[in-house]
């Protein structure tokens, strides 16, 4: 989902979402004491953002997410290039990968707590584990779609294996890899917050939510945290899209079919 949505149009969608939510919680459709309306949640969020402790929690979550994402990219892109281009390695490794992939980070939290402790290591490790896959898979699939003639051209001009990977495979895979990174950001954020939520121990947005939901129906704070997570993801996505547009300025503008 990239492209240049005009500001008003993209706002229409978001405003619509909040409007539905507002109406739903103001009427009897859903329990309003539980799903607090955005007219309460958004001001709560603004107030919370004025609280340095809350801001510290948000920064901690964000920093852990970004760190996890960077580590995931550094592991998954080279791994994807190798797995995508060397079938024997791919065959050998993918069996294990397919066994590991569906194991939920949440299920690993107790073990991770035992192994890495309550510090940020746990959430970062688990987030890397979750964020690896979209980047890895998108890199591998993008390699399958590299135009064989590009490969032939480069090979004919004496480009070696590494050159092929770096100068042909990577650039043609890059846009799809970036889509994987956008997916991975959301996953890393989700895992970090979930770990904070299910394990606790470190400062973070998830812990704020745990604490708030522990003491009665503090749904304003819980939902403010939820909305903030959405906004963080939205902002990160916008940033990655900008990067996409900048990095892939070479690509032909897409013609509309209609």
């Amino acid at each position, binding site marked *: *989902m990239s*492209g240049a*949505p005009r500001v008003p*149009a993209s*706002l229409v969608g*978001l405003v619509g*979402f909040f409007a539905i939510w507002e109406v739903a919680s103001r009427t009897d459709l*859903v329990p309003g004491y*539980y*799903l607090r309306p955005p007219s309460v949640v958004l001001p709560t969020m603004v107030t919370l953002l004025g609280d340095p402790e809350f801001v510290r929690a948000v920064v901690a979550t964000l920093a852990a997410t970004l760190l996890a994402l960077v580590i995931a990219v550094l592991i998954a892109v080279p791994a994807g290039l190798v797995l995508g*281009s060397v079938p024997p390695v791919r*065959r050998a*490794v993918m*069996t*294990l990968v*397919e*066994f*590991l992939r*569906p*194991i*939920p980070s*949440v*299920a690993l939290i107790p*073990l991770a707590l035992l192994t890495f402790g309550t510090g940020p290591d746990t959430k970062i490790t688990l987030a890397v584990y979750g964020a690896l896959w*979209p980047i890895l898979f998108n890199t*591998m*699939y993008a390699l399958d*779609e*590299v135009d064989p003639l590009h*490969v032939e051209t480069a*090979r004919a001009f004496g480009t070696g*294996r590494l050159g092929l990977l770096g100068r042909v495979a990577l650039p043609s895979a890059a846009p*799809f890899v970036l*889509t994987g990174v*956008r*997916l991975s950001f*959301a996953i890393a*954020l*989700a895992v970090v*917050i*979930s770990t904070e*939520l*299910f394990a606790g121990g470190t400062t973070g947005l998830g812990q704020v*939510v745990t604490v708030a939901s522990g003491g009665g129906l503090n*749904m304003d704070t819980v*939902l403010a*945290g*939820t909305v903030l*997570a*959405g*906004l963080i*993801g*939205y902002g990160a*996505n*916008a940033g990655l899209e900008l990067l996409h547009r900048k990095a892939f300025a070479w690509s032909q503008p*897409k*013609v*509309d*079919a*209609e």
Partner: protein
Amino acid sequence: MNRVTRTAQRWVVFVVAVGLWELVTQLAKAAGAEKSFFFPPPSEIALTAKDLWFSSAFGDHIVPGISRMLGGWALAGVIGIALGILLGRSRRAMAYLGAVFNFLRSIPPPLLVPFFVAAVGPTNMQFPTIVFGAIWPVLLNTVDGARGVDATKVETARVFRLSRTQWTFGVVLPSALPKVFAGLRLSLSIALILMVISELIGSANGIGNQLVRAQRDYEPTAMWAWIVLLGVLGYLFNTLLLVLERRVLAWQPRHSLETQALATGG
């Protein structure tokens, strides 16, 4: 290359990994390492697994869990592809909906619980949670694929004034399919993961439910048996999906031996 070497290649790393795992955990156990209680050797896990999986738990927990997960994944796939094509090919749809979706998909599934609880209640929220979480890889990858239809092919389609169905199913979808499959494979494991997460709340049965119970009851072998089951299921469904993918994408040159050799520079 013959079948035997391929199969050997496919399993060698896996077997070595399991062997190492057995070795390390046995050594740790023998040495009386303090955390070895939580990391039983795979041979013990296998024994427990055999008892657990093929007991009444199969009908009580495994089948409901799997049906939830497969149903959720399939629905996520259909919605994701449909929305992805819409958003990928229509600037207007993207302008209006792109922001909402990017906002929604960034909310961690556990934080969405209040919305699902409010909408469908805590005991019914497993299925929507799976659908909601598994949709994004398919959606984003489909958008990417739909956008990437080659310009000359778009022009060809326009010149022959293809019907909307033909355009969607005959041109956009096939061009996007390789990327869609990447998304479907990602979604598959996410659906399994969310099956577990969603069964933590409000559910009376399911694999996740049993997994967490084993965790809480300090039965690490049982917990590992459920974790291994997730791995086995993931591997199984993924293999089936790959077979489907090979069939659907049979036209792709990458499946010809010749070009495969080329792509690897061999």
